[in-house]
Structures are given as structure tokens and as C-alpha cells.
């Protein structure tokens, strides 16, 4: 296994900048997810690393070796395709053995490695069948088995679960995570599904417009989005963003938002008081808002619009001043539309965002 390093790679299609000056390092045995909406360039970046696209500029290293000008077969990679790309004219056995046969491995080694890959993916029973006789989920397993059988330096996966139905996807997700940990693969995984990204990745690279906006652990990407776009793209419901105005009274920094005042923690306050135009976006996740039935200090008054019981918790949409806000409460929390409630934003969970640039203001 080895690390992947992408060095200021550019790829354009005509006038479209699919990938623009991207740097990315995936450490040995790390599982990195490329996450972004469709058309953000994540698949193009993966294909550049695989050698299926030629980069316009920049370098691609796999395991310290410069692979930029090498064809896919010499990059020592394995890949799982979105459509699975299982060869229809070959049996499952021959599909899994394909890479090994191309490497001219001796017969008993091919046999052994196909067997162990098949066991890992629970497809031992299917080895003699043709892909047309398999279900979508089984074909998916064949594609993964084929990729791990070659024991390549790195494993590339292009939305491997997106063609499965919801239940199967959930099952495969957990199984992939177990499997990839077991074989200690360096993996780069492309998806547009944020839940998949959060649950699988050691780190997530969020892409948009051909660039990587944030590259961090799932928790940090979720809790501390680098900008407005990421906060809105990741998480269900998306992060709430409230207009805020910074004031200083008696030396204390406060932010006026949703018809009330909130008091940022000291460091954030110091940073906010430096702002020139004094306007800021208050980013807060639905679960970081405390719902109170009665007025309290530094709680903002809101009116209930919609209550959605989701089993494990309730999702309540409320009118807060001129804005709407989504709040999670316990499943047994009772509320009626029209009812007034008081919201307390957990101050140290707030993400302060510069209104003009949409970028998060860093203070840690």
C-alpha cells in the first residue's frame, strides 16, 4: 500500500474547468472521500489519478512514483466503477481473476487469491455464474472482489454504492468499511452522498467548482464547515444561517440576531469586534439549539411552524424574527404550530461566517 499525492492538477474540457489547481494527499492506508455535488470535478479528479484522463497540468504521485505520464495499467491501481463494469462475457471467477491473469500470475496463485477475495465478499457460491445471472448487489460485490484481488497500491472507487437500493446500500456501506480496514487499503472514494462520506471517510475532501474547499476529518467538516456552501451541503437538515449584527456594549461583544442578543465566547467575541462592516452570519446546527418552553436569559423567542416527528427525534421548523430555523428536539417534546418557544444557541458550537465572502471566520 502507498500514499497518493496530487500536485496542482488541472483538467479542462473545452472551456469547462473540471479540476483546477487541486492539491491532495492521501496517506498510506487512509480512507479519503471526495465529496461534492454532481459536476464538481470529483470523478474527473479520480479519473486523472487512475490515468483514464490525461491531466493538463500538475503531477500525480502514487507511492512516491510519478505516475503522471503512465497508462492506467502501469499505475498499480485498482478501481471500482459506478456501473460496476463487470465483464458480461466472463464468469464471476474470470472477472475476479482478470487483473491477475493480466499479470500472468501462476495458476494456483490466481486460484488462491480469487478464492480469498470471493470469501471476503461472500460470493464463493457465484464463481461459476455469468454477470447476467446476478443481482445488482451481487455484481457490486464482484466488482469490489475484482479490485481487491489484484492487491494494488491504491484502491479508487467511483460512487460504488449509488446504483444500489437504499437498504442494500446501508448494508454494503458497513461491509465496505470493515473490508477496507481489514485489507489495509489506501482508498480514494468518490460520492455525492454526504452520509456515505461522513460514515466511511477518515478524511473528507469537499469539492465544488473543480476545487477542494475543505479537507478535514468528518467531524470537523460537519462541525466546522469552512464556508457557507459546505455548511449547507453537509448535514441533514443543513446548517442554519442567521443574519447577525455585531455590537459592543460596556466592553462586552454581542451579536444581535433573530430579534435578540447572543453572547459569543471570549475568543470569538474578540475576533468579531475586529470586523469592519460588523455584519456576520451565525451558523448553527439543528441539534445545537436548546428549546425552552419559557423565556430565559439569552434565549430568542420563536414561533413553531411545522413539527416533524422522525422517531429518534423531532425536527421543528420555526420562525425566528424574519428568518426560518430548523431545530432538533427530543422525540417526546410536545409542540403545536403557532406556539411560542425560546431558543438558546449553544455558543461554542456557533460557526461565525463572513457575510461578504461566505468563508468561516477562524479563531481556533
Amino acid at each position, binding site marked *: 500500500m502507498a500514499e497518493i499525492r496530487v500536485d496542482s492538477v488541472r483538467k479542462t474540457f473545452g472551456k469547462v474547468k473540471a479540476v483546477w489547481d487541486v492539491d491532495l494527499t492521501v496517506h498510506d492506508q487512509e480512507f479519503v472521500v471526495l465529496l461534492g455535488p454532481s459536476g464538481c470535478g470529483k470523478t474527473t479528479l479520480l479519473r486523472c489519478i*487512475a*490515468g*483514464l484522463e490525461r491531466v493538463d497540468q500538475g503531477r500525480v504521485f502514487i507511492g512516491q512514483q510519478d505516475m503522471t505520464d503512465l*497508462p*492506467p*495499467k502501469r499505475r498499480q*491501481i*485498482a*478501481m471500482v*466503477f*459506478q*456501473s460496476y*463494469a463487470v*465483464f*458480461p*462475457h466472463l464468469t464471476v471467477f474470470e472477472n475476479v481473476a*482478470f*487483473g491477475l491473469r*493480466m*499479470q500472468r500470475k501462476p495458476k494456483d496463485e490466481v486460484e488462491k487469491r480469487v478464492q480469498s477475495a470471493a470469501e471476503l465478499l461472500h460470493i464463493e457460491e457465484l464463481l461459476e455464474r455469468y454477470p447476467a445471472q446476478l443481482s445488482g448487489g451481487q455484481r457490486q460485490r464482484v466488482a469490489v472482489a*475484482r479490485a481487491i484481488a*489484484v492487491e494494488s497500491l491504491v484502491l479508487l472507487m467511483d460512487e460504488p454504492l449509488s446504483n444500489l437500493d437504499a437498504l442494500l446500500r446501508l448494508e454494503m456501506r458497513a461491509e465496505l468499511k470493515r473490508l477496507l480496514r481489514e485489507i489495509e487499503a489506501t482508498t480514494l472514494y468518490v460520492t455525492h452522498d454526504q452520509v456515505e462520506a461522513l460514515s466511511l471517510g477518515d478524511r473528507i475532501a469537499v469539492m465544488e467548482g473543480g476545487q477542494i474547499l475543505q479537507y478535514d476529518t468528518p467531524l470537523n467538516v460537519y462541525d466546522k464547515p469552512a464556508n457557507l456552501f459546505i455548511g449547507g451541503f453537509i448535514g441533514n437538515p443543513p446548517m442554519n444561517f442567521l443574519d447577525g449584527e455585531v455590537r459592543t456594549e460596556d466592553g462586552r461583544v454581542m451579536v444581535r440576531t433573530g430579534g435578540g442578543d447572543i453572547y459569543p465566547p471570549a475568543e470569538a467575541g474578540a475576533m468579531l469586534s475586529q470586523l469592519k462592516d460588523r455584519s456576520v452570519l451565525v451558523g448553527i446546527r439543528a441539534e445545537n439549539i436548546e428549546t425552552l418552553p419559557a423565556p430565559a436569559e439569552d434565549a430568542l423567542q420563536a414561533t413553531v411552524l411545522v413539527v416533524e416527528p422522525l422517531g429518534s427525534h423531532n425536527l421543528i421548523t420555526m420562525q425566528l424574527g424574519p428568518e426560518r430555523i430548523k431545530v432538533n428536539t427530543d422525540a417526546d417534546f410536545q409542540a403545536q404550530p403557532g406556539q411560542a418557544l425560546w431558543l438558546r444557541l449553544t455558543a461554542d458550537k456557533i460557526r461565525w461566517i463572513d457575510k461578504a465572502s461566505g468563508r468561516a471566520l477562524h479563531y481556533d
Partner: protein
Amino acid sequence: MKRKRTVLSSRLIGRGLVYLAAILIALWILIPIYLIAMAALSPRDVIYDWPKPLFPQAISVETMQFFLNSYQVLPSLRNSVIVALLALVVSLVIGAPAGYGLARYVFRGQDVFRVAILSTRAFPIVILSIPLGVIFRQWGMYDSLISVALLHVAMALPTTILVTSSVFMGVSKELEEAATVFGCNRVQAFMRVALPLALPGLAASAIFTFVLSWNEVFAATILTLFNRTLPALMIVQLDAAPVAFRFAGGFFILIPAIVFMFFIRRYLFSLWGITLK
């Protein structure tokens, strides 16, 4: 209620008319084939019977035997097979790569190129064969099977290219990419993945060329003198030949075309965008 019934009945009538038209067209094609086949398989004296019996009275190979033993029939049959095989191989060797290129690569002027391929069919064989006859004579290729085969290649190439391109389009690009990732170069990926998957379609296109060459009369007649292909021989002898010879010859030339139709139906339909259920 009444309205519903009229809508229903007019739909039924419409359907009936479609079926009627289909049956008429089918009969228009099938009746002559049936009569030819019956005559070819009847004893020679029955052919002259009138009124014609609707069903064969006695099946015999006598007429067919007479045809096959006639002067020059067997050598020209051999010529026909050689020409058709040559045309098949050459048109596939040139046409399949062109079709693959059209299917896999996006390039400037692609649509113009597609139309340009078809436009070669805009020249009637008549216009092509006579100047070609002159040129072949100058080059010392006149009255050779190769020159006939080359002209047949020219006729078959547009369809070969377009059919093979649609066949290769049916083979997912990701499959070939997967092959390159797992250790193939471009040529190996083509040979190990694209080609086996395209093979049935390529075979259909090859059979199409074979039958086209097998049936082609005009160019073969113009470009040969002694080395006739079977249709060229027939067209020259038809006036002088007895009726039994004509029926037997017609039937003999017909068989490959009918057999071929059953083979390539599916591929022609997929080319035309119709799917057979």
C-alpha cells in the same frame, strides 16, 4: 357509454387495418418466394402444369440437380463464394475500426463524416461500374474476382461502418476502461473485452456484406467476362434458359438471403431503434 364504445370500436378498426396492411405486405413478398420454392422443388414436367397446384404434388431434387449440373454453374458458384468472402473480410477489416472510431471518439466534423460515409451510396452502381471497368482494364485487373470484390466492398462499407459503430456503442466504455485499469493496454482492452462483446453484431454485419455481394448483379456483369459470379451468369443466360433453370437458380440465390434475415434481425432492429420483445 355509447361514446366509449365508438372510441373502442374505432381503435379496433384502426388496429385491424394495421394488421391487414401487414398481412398484405407479407403476402406480397411471401407468395412469389413460395411459388419459386415450389417450382424449384417440383419435377420438371410439373412446372408447366396449369392451373398451378397450391401445394406441391411431389417433392423432387430433379430440377435443382439439373440447374447445378448446367454449364458454368458450379464454377460461377465457386466465384460467387470467393467474391463474397473477400468482400466480407475486406469490408470488416476496413469498416470495423472506422465504426469503432466513430463510436468511441468525439472529433470535429463527426456528423459530417457520418453523412459523408452514406453519401458514397448516392452514386448508382451503374455510374461506378463502367468507369471502374475501364480503370480495371488499364490496370490489368479486368475480369478478375478481386475487382468485383473491391466494388462490393465499396458498396458494403457504409453500412458496415454504421452498423459496427452502433454495435460498439452498445459496448460500455467503462468496460474497456476497467480492462485498462486491470492491466490491459488499449489494444488488449479491445481484443479481450470490446471485441468478444461486439462479436455477434460484427458477425451480423459480415453476413450482411456476404448477402449483398452474393445478390449483386450489375457490377459483376460489367466487370467480368469469363469469371462470372452466379447472379451475373444467371442474368446473361436467363433469356435462353428453360423455365426450370430460372426457378431453380432463383431459389438457389434466394436461400442465403432468407437465412441471413433470421440471423441479423435483432441487430438491424437495434440499429433502427426498435427492440424485439
